[in-house]
């Protein structure tokens, strides 16, 4: 387990801002923290970044107490990095900022140069490498701060509202980077956001905070909001955006819900993957897509298929060996009606 929080509270003077009975966060997952202003998202991120000691209760990171005897705080803190909602850059050049975390770790210069160039390229700030940070726009500061965090190659990347105060184009860049870092480097990502759409797109699980307490905790992979385009006995077509529609099995939506917005979840355990020539059976619908990621998860294999949206499929080892898809393969994704659940919110 990556983090285990038990009966954790955080108090500032007389005000209790965090009161968490229990929270366990696993490695290599993406978690979204959602909640209104003042819900305790930033305070929780600061706790997870090991920047503040809890007032009471326990927090363990990688099974160790960071504030316990033996003083492992610095060693553990160097595995985590937090990107603030309004990050601040040290005075100097962009390069100096991005290589700061590497310098304090005494990484050799060649390796520093390589990582700085790579991370600035990732965030699209290569041309700014020798520029003084004075005069960068808010969005550019945010991207440099993200590059500075990524350069460390942390085990856990914490982002406090990563797309706040960033224009739409760069919001997409930041979200894509977060997605890629999790997929390619298997970095655990924990981010706070006000946007359900972001948590649904990126997060495996969403933690909803209210008044410093966890009000709900749910799986958000394969969870979608869509507009119903067509619903009859043969199929249900929903639209996630103006340009993208996909088919759900018949009978999922029984009411005449055309043009209504529905929230539905697809159970990854119920899905099947097959050859593109796969023929839809009764009560199933077929969508074609490309395998984007394959990851082993205990006794199962998680396969992410891009059918225009990313859908996760969980196969047991036998089923996986039977289909043996590879990353980049074009496959058919079978969605049975029993896999889709309509949500009421």
């Amino acid at each position, binding site marked *: 387990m990556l983090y285990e929080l038990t009966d954790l509270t955080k108090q500032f003077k007389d005000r209790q801002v965090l009161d968490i009975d229990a929270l366990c966060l696993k490695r290599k997952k993406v978690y979204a923290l959602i909640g209104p202003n003042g819900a305790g998202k930033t305070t929780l991120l*600061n706790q997870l970044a090991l920047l503040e000691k809890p007032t009471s209760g326990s927090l363990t990171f990688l099974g160790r107490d960071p504030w316990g005897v033996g003083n492992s705080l*610095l060693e553990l*803190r160097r595995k985590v990095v*937090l990107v*603030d909602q309004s990050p601040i850059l*040290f*005075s100097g050049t962009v390069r100096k900022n991005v290589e700061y975390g590497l310098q304090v770790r005494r990484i050799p210069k060649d390796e520093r140069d390589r990582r700085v160039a790579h991370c600035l390229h990732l965030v699209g700030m290569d041309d700014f490498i020798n520029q*003084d940070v004075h005069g960068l726009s808010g969005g550019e500061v945010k991207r440099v701060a993200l590059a500075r965090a990524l350069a460390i190659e942390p085990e856990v990347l914490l982002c406090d509202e990563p797309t706040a105060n960033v224009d739409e184009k760069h919001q997409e860049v930041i979200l894509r980077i977060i997605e890629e870092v999790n997929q390619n480097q298997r970095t655990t990502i924990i981010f706070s956001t006000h946007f359900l759409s972001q948590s649904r797109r990126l997060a495996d699980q969403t933690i909803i905070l209210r008044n410093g307490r966890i009000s709900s905790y749910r799986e958000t992979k394969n969870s979608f909001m869509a507009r119903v385009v067509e619903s009859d006995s043969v199929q249900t077509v929903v639209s996630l955006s103006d340009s993208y529609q996909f088919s759900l099995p018949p009978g999922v939506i029984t009411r005449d819900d055309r043009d209504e917005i529905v929230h539905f979840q697809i159970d990854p355990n119920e899905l099947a993957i097959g050859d593109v020539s796969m023929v839809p059976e009764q009560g199933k619908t077929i969508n074609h897509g490309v395998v984007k990621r394959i990851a082993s998860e205990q006794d199962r294999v998680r396969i992410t298929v891009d059918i225009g949206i990313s859908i996760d499929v969980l196969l047991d080892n036998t089923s996986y060996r039977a289909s043996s898809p590879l990353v980049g393969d074009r496959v058919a994704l079978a969605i049975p009606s029993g896999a889709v659940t309509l949500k009421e919110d």
Partner: protein
Amino acid sequence: MLLDSLKSAVLLMLSFDRELVEIVLVSLNVSLWSTLFASVIGLPAGFFIAFYRFRAKRLVMTCLNTLLALPTVVIGLVVYSLITKRGVLGPLDLLYTQKAIIIGQIILIVPVITSLTIAAISKIDKRYRSTALTLGANTRQMSWVIFREARFGITAAIIAAFGRVIAEVGISMMLGGNAKGFTRTMTTAMALEYDKGEFVLAVALGIVLMAFAFTINLVFHFLQGRLNSDAV
């Protein structure tokens, strides 16, 4: 009379009068050393007081503010009582030496540097600390980040302290004794020349002192411009 003195003073300066140069060098020597030692004490002290929470913090700040108003003659008296032949430090034979002036001046400006450092550090955005820590800095590395970001305020503190000691007269007079060629500083020499009714050297030293003040301010403003353009 003033114009005549001014003209003679300029000529004295242009001729690099030996006595004038000697006095200026003594002044610079004691002021630079006292500023250096006071910085070594005052900067870390200011950083510690600004950065850490401790019980007597408010009391320490009040004491520092009080010490800012400490008259030079009081410092002169206290140090004199310590280094006089019958004083605790009498055997060190410091009285009427440049070292005695330096000790007195350190006591004078440590509160100045400490207070201004506290002000400079307190102004620094708290996010610098958390950013350095989350990027993996240890306490020493994080402190250096804060110091670096506060460098403009810290430079101002050091310059203000130097300006204070180069222009003070009480300590230099009481502890240095105004011995020609040894402990005669610009200010004590000016006081002596005034007593003698000889204005030429006094005016020349006054001009040199003003030139120092102007140059220091000029450098300070140049640095301010440079450092401000570095700030985010």
